């Protein structure tokens, strides 16, 4: 996609998230003040007085007449408001959590890239061989395992039974390993398959054969005429995979107690903190579009032929 269509996409994402958030605000069963007060004060201290003070403080009564256009206008001015729970600016909250999520996602991506594509390439070079077959089996098994289950298996084996790594927590480097591994295994399974398929496809092409006929060794053929072609679909895939990564982050963060954006999102959904939901969703959506813009550029670098 080119720049203008990415911009359009960006606009559309903003429009959809804004619209959904507006609908959410409108359709909250009961009184938002109650839910917000619940999020703030907990069940032991929640009462009518607490709800009333929230209502007064946030001026929730006035929101009935809120117009969608004003709502969108606020978003377009990057005015995301304040969290209904903490009272902190949504930007401040997100900035904090996004960093944590990005480092986790980055670590996961890194690990998955170390595992997945190399294995996939090896399997693809010898399509039908034992590595290919076992990789296919492992990938199928991994893809059929929901992430939270994988997380628990890893925790039970590595953390509890072997006592090697902490089961949850945040702050030390060793806390990264388990959640990142959980995320990475799923990603690696898919990227390995993709790399394998791409590699197998490349080895079938006429130009791959011709490169060998020219006298290039297998390794030379791979580096000069294979890798770039495999990298193309892989890079595109990684751009699209960002969403899956984020989705995994939501579940994984909640299991491993990781103070990231996914954790915040689930929390915000529970307590109906609509500005936070909107903020996180916007950041995720916009992040996706931007990352794919990068992927477009990288793809153009790898494949200067233009639109395929």
């Amino acid at each position, binding site marked *: 996609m080119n720049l203008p269509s990415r911009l359009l996409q960006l606009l559309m994402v903003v429009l959809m998230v804004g619209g959904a958030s507006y609908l959410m605000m409108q359709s909250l*069963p*009961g*009184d938002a003040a*109650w*839910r917000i*007060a*619940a*999020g*703030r*004060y*907990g*069940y*032991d*201290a*929640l*009462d*009518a*007085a*607490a*709800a*009333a*003070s929230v209502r007064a403080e946030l001026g929730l009564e006035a929101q009935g007449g809120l117009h969608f256009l004003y709502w969108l206008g606020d978003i377009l001015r990057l005015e995301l408001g304040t969290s209904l*729970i*903490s*009272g*902190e600016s949504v930007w401040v909250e997100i900035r*904090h959590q996004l960093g944590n999520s990005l480092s986790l996602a980055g670590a996961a991506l890194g690990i998955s890239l170390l595992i997945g594509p190399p294995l996939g390439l090896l399997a693809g070079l010898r399509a039908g061989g034992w590595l290919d077959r076992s990789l296919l089996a492992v990938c199928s098994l991994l893809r059929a395992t929901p992430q939270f289950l994988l997380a*628990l298996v890893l*925790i*039970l*084996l590595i*953390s*509890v*039974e072997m*006592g090697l790594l*902490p*089961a*949850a*927590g*945040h*702050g030390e480097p060793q806390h990264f390993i388990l959640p990142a591994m959980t995320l990475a295994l799923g990603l690696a399974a898919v990227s390995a398959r993709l790399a394998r398929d791409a590699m197998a496809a490349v080895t079938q092409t006429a130009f791959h054969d011709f490169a060998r006929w020219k006298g290039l060794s297998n390794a030379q053929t791979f580096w000069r005429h294979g890798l770039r072609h495999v990298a193309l679909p892989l890079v595109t895939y990684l751009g699209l995979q960002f969403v899956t990564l984020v989705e995994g982050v939501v579940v994984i963060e*909640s*299991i*491993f*107690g990781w*103070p990231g954006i996914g*954790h*915040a999102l689930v*929390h915000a959904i*529970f*307590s*109906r903190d609509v500005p936070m939901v909107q903020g996180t969703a916007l950041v995720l959506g916009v992040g996706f579009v931007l990352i794919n813009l990068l992927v477009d550029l990288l793809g153009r670098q790898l494949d200067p032929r233009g639109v395929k």
Partner: protein
Amino acid sequence: MVKLLSRLRWQYRTFLHDRRQLAVASVALSLAVVQPSHAQDASAAQASAADTRRLEIVGPFDIKGADPLLSGILFQRMQIVETLVEVDATGELQPGLASDWEVSDDGLEWRFTLRSGVQFHDGSQLDAEVARQVLEIARAKPGLLKSVPVERIVAEDAQTLVIALSEPFAALPAYLADYRQQILAPAAFDETGTAQQVIGTGPYRMLRMTPPLSLEVTAFEDYWGPQPEVRQARYQAVSRAEGRALIAESGDADFTYGLDPASRQRLSQSPRVTLAAAATPRTMLLKVNANHPAFQDPAVRRALSLAIDRTAIAQVVLRYPRGASQLFPPMVEGWHDPALPELHQDVAKARALLDAAGWKVAEDGIRHKDGQRLAISLITFSDRPELPLVATVLERQFHAIGIQTRLDITNFSAIPAGHHDGSLDMALFARNLAMVPDPIGNVLSDYAGTPEASGGDWGAMGWFDADFTAELERMAREGYGPTPARQDPRAQASGVIQRALPVIPIAWYYQNLAISNRLQSAQVDPWERSFGLSELRWAQ
């Protein structure tokens, strides 16, 4: 892996056998956890040395912000902040930042003498004026103090704080022990009265706070009391019970709060941790809307109560030795009346009561009266994972007596909200009956009220008893002096609730935690006020 599986199988087999014994054992354990320290003197020396050991605490409570109203209870538990009045394990009031207090004969003027030489973490001094400002801020916010008939608060001199009331209120000192009345330095508050920092007087000061999941404290060198042995501590919020249990199991936490029943069972086998439990003044109860056409009739409410198998719920779902026989657990002395006839299950009698009340079983197995089906909704929430489970059990047990129940597992705010708009039928929740160490505050707010606005958000709904209310108000004013019947008035009040059943008690709670073997001893505070950090000793 094989080892793991065989272990699993063994535990599965022995589970039934173990279940009852375990619960009893863990309660017994809790009574004997505090051990005298033989390292009292050594502790100071150790403290001065750079002790880098950090105590790891894991609990379910998110950190929401610096204001006492948001996460004040956590700051209190971490002993960052203190209140004027403290409470001991038996519920007796103890001196806190106020070393002494007295009340005038007419009960209208309370005089608190503040401890001298108390320093805040920012170096400022505590005096009566500071305490006054902070209490005024607390009074302006929602909370229990609002319901106290305070006329004015005066700093009489540097160490004397006077609280003048418009009418007597015997439980005032207990109210001041509530976490919302924690004493922060004035510098902690912004101009709107919202705390932006946590500057307390406790033995620990805040090192860093990263909401919502963690905060770190370090010992406060200028604390007015003895220096604690544990110099560093970190609290981490882990919202899922499984996650907490796993952390405890892997030995990454020294103190793990809020263990679910199944994890307790598992952790009891772990060599890394010791389980502790203490009865707490928290009861799981079923709030019933007495305005509902069916539940107006006390006999129908009684039938509901008779349908419930509390023992099975306690033993199978909660893994406690037994269910609640009345609203207050035995630890709440005075309010708990051992003489009260126990709530129990009697399905036949429940059916008979419903029949007598005119609710007849129709063809679909559900009772009808005047063309109305006895189908109700039950609201509960999953913040406490046992609640949906118990609700599921209740649904079947009510079904057995011909009542159709629709479970609505939602945000807990639906309960007070449903109370106020009248839409609630039944709600299941866990209520802390002693937010203030003296339960009178809770009982007043939950069961008194006025004929127009009867009961309270987390108590009775549509049920009002004028005499009962008057008696509660008297107790609040005058304390628990003898009545003409020469009975403890608190027990009498419990009796009223037991007979009328505006709420149906299901189970009494225990506080469960796992303590790592790095620690030598640990204390469980039944009032959920403190993690007891300053009392802890390292194992070596």
